[in-house]
């Protein structure tokens, strides 16, 4: 049934749109960074920057490449990115590509782990709430969900760290981060708590989406038809109501995952995990232009690609969109 809107054409069309979006992101990040007061030199030297004489300052400006005009800087960086060169950290001199290669797996793993915990919990609670709307279990689940949504991540993360430190004598330490390839157990013991913290809000969001979609589909006529055929209640719930609810649940999950890739800044900071969020935060405080620009662009790309993947899955789940 691949008509004029076949999947390949769909993907190509979307990728073209993506390129425009990403260019916009690049411009905005570049401008915003330059609009911040100070520059790499003041960030690096702090108050001592004031003691530089004009010659020293000019030399440093040239050294960091800040003497070029903004358009030249932007095009130089973007041109490099297009060829796979993400620039060099002005702060540490390490290539940004290396920094990202180290940080990306941490964030992706954290996001996946949080999703893996939040999705089944959220879907299960959503069904639980929707199966008896307005009754005790619905109200309990809904209240818990509101708490989950209302509780800021930094509070939950800080409380979690405090409890871990006082009760379990566990102190997060960025120096001792264990990659998954080194020790699965050691890695998971470091990632499970931040993943749980992230999962709370996610599960609440997924729960609410599931509840709404499930309730709406449970009332639909095709569910009445299925019951009228004598189909068992379990099959009606899973095969018809939940199946039809998967489309909105998947959309919500995909969007949340996209956010997670760029939005674990606080949790990574509190748990001292060397992920993209922390890299980005350090880059901003050091006004490390190449690091911030390239990391942001990467996160934006990932976000867009995740959304594209969701749309492709969507087409798979709902024949009407093919």
């Amino acid at each position, binding site marked *: 049934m691949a008509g004029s809107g076949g999947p390949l054409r769909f993907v190509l069309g979307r990728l073209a749109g993506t390129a425009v979006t990403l260019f916009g992101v690049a411009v905005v990040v570049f401008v915003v960074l330059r609009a911040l007061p100070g520059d790499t030199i003041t960030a690096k030297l702090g108050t001592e920057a004031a003691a530089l004489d004009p010659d020293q300052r000019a030399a440093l400006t040239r050294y960091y490449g800040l003497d070029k005009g903004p358009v030249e800087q932007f095009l130089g960086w973007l041109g490099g990115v297009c060829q796979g060169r993400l620039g060099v950290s002005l702060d540490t001199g390490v290539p940004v590509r290396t920094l990202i290669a180290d940080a990306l797996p941490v964030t992706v793993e954290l996001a996946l782990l949080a999703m893996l915990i939040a999705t089944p919990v959220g879907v299960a609670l959503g069904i639980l709430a929707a199966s008896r709307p307005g009754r005790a279990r619905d109200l309990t689940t809904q209240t818990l969900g509101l708490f989950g949504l209302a509780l800021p991540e930094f509070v939950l993360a800080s409380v979690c760290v405090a409890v871990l430190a006082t009760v379990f004598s566990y102190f997060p330490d960025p120096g001792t981060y264990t990659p998954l390839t080194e020790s699965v157990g050691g890695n998971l013991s470091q990632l499970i708590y931040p993943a749980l913290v992230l999962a709370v809000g996610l599960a609440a969001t997924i729960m609410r989406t599931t509840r709404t979609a499930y309730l709406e589909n449970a009332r639909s*006529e*095709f569910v009445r*038809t299925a*019951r*009228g*055929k*004598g189909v068992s209640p379990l099959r009606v719930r899973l095969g018809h109501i939940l199946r039809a609810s998967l489309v909105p649940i998947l959309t919500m999950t995909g969007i949340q995952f996209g956010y997670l890739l760029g939005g674990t800044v606080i949790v990574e900071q509190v748990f001292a995990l060397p992920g993209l969020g922390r890299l980005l935060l350090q880059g901003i405080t050091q006004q490390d232009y190449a690091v911030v620009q390239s990391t942001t662009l990467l996160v934006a790309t990932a976000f867009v690609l995740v959304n594209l993947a969701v749309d492709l899955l969507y087409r798979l789940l709902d024949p*009407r969109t093919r």
Partner: protein
Amino acid sequence: MNGPLLEVRDLRAAVGDLDVVRGISFGIAPGETVGLVGESGSGKTFTALSVMGLLPDAARVTGGSIAYEGRDILRLPERERRSLRGAGIAMIHQEPLTALNPLMRVGAQIIEGLRAHGVPRAEARRRMLDTLDEVGLPTPDRTARRYPHQLSGGQRQRIVIAMALAPRPRLLIADEPTTALDATVQQQILAQVDRLRRDHDLAVLWITHDLGVVARLTRRVLVMYAGRIVEDAPVRALYADPRHPYSAGLIASLPPAPAPDGTPAERTPLPAIGGTPPDLAALPPGCPFAPRCPQRADRCTTEEPPLTDRTACWVPKEKWT
């Protein structure tokens, strides 16, 4: 079996505090076709959903009994009740697009109904294809792989009918199955269902507000008004000699039939029933039709007439003005 296939006695159903079915009784014999007519809100669909056990969450049966093959299905455990649903009594709904699951291939939806009643997979598939052929869908194996949105309105309704008939029920409840379709498709579908009814010795309860459909397809008519049956009569008798003023009003509002040679009848304004449909939340004491009734007597506004000998009316036809 000699007794009625379905025997409804003093059935009552309510949505919240609102009584929507207020004590109705009727029977359907095996192979019989019965029409259930009345305006929207008269309780036709709630009657059907009560029989199916598919009332929406807010509604429930509040009294009476529904016997299928002699057993009161309201007292059956849910599991046994479910085994009747689809296999004993099947229902087709008004809107075929929303009645079908948009995410499932139509063939799979028919097979699902057969599998629910223990038909083995291979046989279910064979019967699905046979039934698609029976309801007049060409190339069954291609049609079976379609999704509902890929079919026309008429094809979808044929799928819905195939889905209802594949498990070979003995009673089919057809709730205005053609209202959403074009006039020509309507006629084809009605004729198709009627043919299948004869082939399978199926009893059919036609729910409709279209008296023309009733005249063509049924032997007996139940006229519902405000949650009660006000007249229960053979279809010919009802047309020739309606005994309830509401039935008389319905028949008077039908366009006259064309003459036998085909020339259309003279165009005259059709009389309509005056007044507005009743508000179930604020029914008057006495007969609910009394406020709109041209034959109203004093007793009609104080005491609700029971259904006796065809009609629920205090004023005998001889005294009508």
